[in-house]
């Protein structure tokens, strides 16, 4: 990751680098939580699911640590301009990453409730969708570490693929439920999983937008909106 080492007061650089390191670590854990949650879902691995739930506490602890460090740095160093924007973005980004962790935990919690779901055809689609979401989260946090506004823009553009996936899975699951009323409970859980993944993609987009603001000082142009998700809620929540 890009180190900062050009302030006259070197201790300030150390604070900033520590902050960036913590956020990178937090992002890595959230990404891992997502991938493990999806693995536990596809394999019915309850131990792995339980581990995802446990590990979420570490993400929460990292959020608290970043908040404390950011507040302390603002108080002691009085950052200005891009440094100030970075502090504010750091505070917002960690709360978003924490939400991503919560969604992964929520997916993991559903595994125990869905014994019969392994034959549902939507699961491979969900795995593919989650891989895209994990990449978006990864790239959004990379764009923060590298101060890369272009990568941030690409993340927001690619979020449309997630929305498309969501619409497709939504249709697949609704059709499946109509044909297999016995599986309605499992299918409903999978709808929530899809919804969680879709929200995670939006959160990755939020991070990318904040990175763009940190780097450029301007807010990203309202991106081209993709097709509205078919339950009509996803984009409205995003603001």
């Amino acid at each position: 990751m890009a180190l900062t080492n050009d302030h006259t007061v070197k201790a300030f650089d150390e604070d900033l680098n520590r902050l960036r390191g913590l956020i990178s670590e937090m992002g890595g854990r959230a990404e891992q939580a997502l991938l493990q949650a999806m693995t536990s879902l596809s394999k019915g691995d309850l131990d792995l699911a339980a581990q995802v739930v446990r590990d979420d506490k570490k993400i929460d602890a990292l959020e608290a640590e970043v908040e404390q460090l950011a507040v302390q740095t603002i108080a002691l160093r009085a950052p200005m301009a891009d440094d100030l924007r970075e502090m504010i973005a750091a505070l917002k980004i960690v709360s978003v990453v924490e939400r991503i962790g919560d969604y992964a935990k929520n997916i993991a919690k559903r595994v125990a409730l869905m014994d019969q779901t392994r034959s549902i055809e939507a699961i491979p689609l969900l795995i593919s969708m989650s891989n895209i979401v994990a990449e978006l989260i990864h790239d959004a946090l990379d764009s923060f570490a590298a101060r890369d506004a272009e990568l941030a823009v690409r993340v927001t553009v690619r979020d449309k693929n997630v929305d498309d996936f969501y619409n497709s899975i939504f249709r697949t699951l609704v059709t499946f439920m109509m044909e297999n009323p016995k599986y309605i409970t499992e299918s409903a859980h999978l709808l929530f999983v899809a919804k969680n993944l879709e929200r995670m993609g939006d959160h990755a987009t939020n991070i990318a937008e904040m990175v763009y603001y940190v780097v450029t000082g301007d807010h990203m142009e309202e991106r081209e909106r993709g097709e509205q998700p078919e339950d009509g809620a996803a984009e409205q929540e995003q603001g």
Partner: protein
Amino acid sequence: MTQDDLTIADPKMKAHGVNVFYGEKQAINDVSIDVGTDLVTAFIGPSGCGKSTFLRSLNRMNDTVASAKVTGQIELDGEDIYAPSMDVVQLRARVGMVFQKPNPFPKSIYDNVGYGPRIHGLAPNKADLDVIVERALVRAGLWDEVKDRLAESGTALSGGQQQRLCIARAIAVDPEVILMDEPCSALDPIATAKIEELIHELRGKYAIVIVTHNMQQAARVSQRTAFFHLGTLVEYGKTTDIFTNPKQERTKDYITGRYG
């Protein structure tokens, strides 16, 4: 330099293409800036960047330096202040100045404030002068602290009180612009806060220009900030923009502590 959405409808002072030389050395290079009537304008920049030199050209204080030469145009209400017809004494009453180190006259508190109005003929009699002195001290936030000891020497006051006395002295001649050159650098944080509060209260009554090394102070008291570097005006903009999203790399490096 950028001028994005930086229109000042009714500038009190306009500087255009100003150069200042000390002998052979050029201290200010082609600076143009408008000072708003209802605004506090802060000049920031590293030592030697020319901000104080430029401030002092706004009321011709540089005239007192033999080797100094000013070219370009500086107007007060559209009037060229370097025109031969300009009365410099009158100009400095209209464009008052407060310095880094409080410099009260070795006279009574009353006389410190009353001296200017008296020599400018603003007070025909003692009663008028009493009113002017009280009003200036009230505006400078010093009245309650000194009203019972107006005959005491101005130099007996604390540093912060002395600085407010100097501001009262500047106000007493009813100026249009007040120039402040590092007015708080010799003061403790409480006295500094009082001066900053005073600047806030005086805004609107006088156009105020303040030179400060303390960037937090510039951020706290001003609505417009100008960043000087090596005798040039690098960036001039809304204070909020300068401190959150400066357009120039040199401004950013300076305000974020990366300079040099």
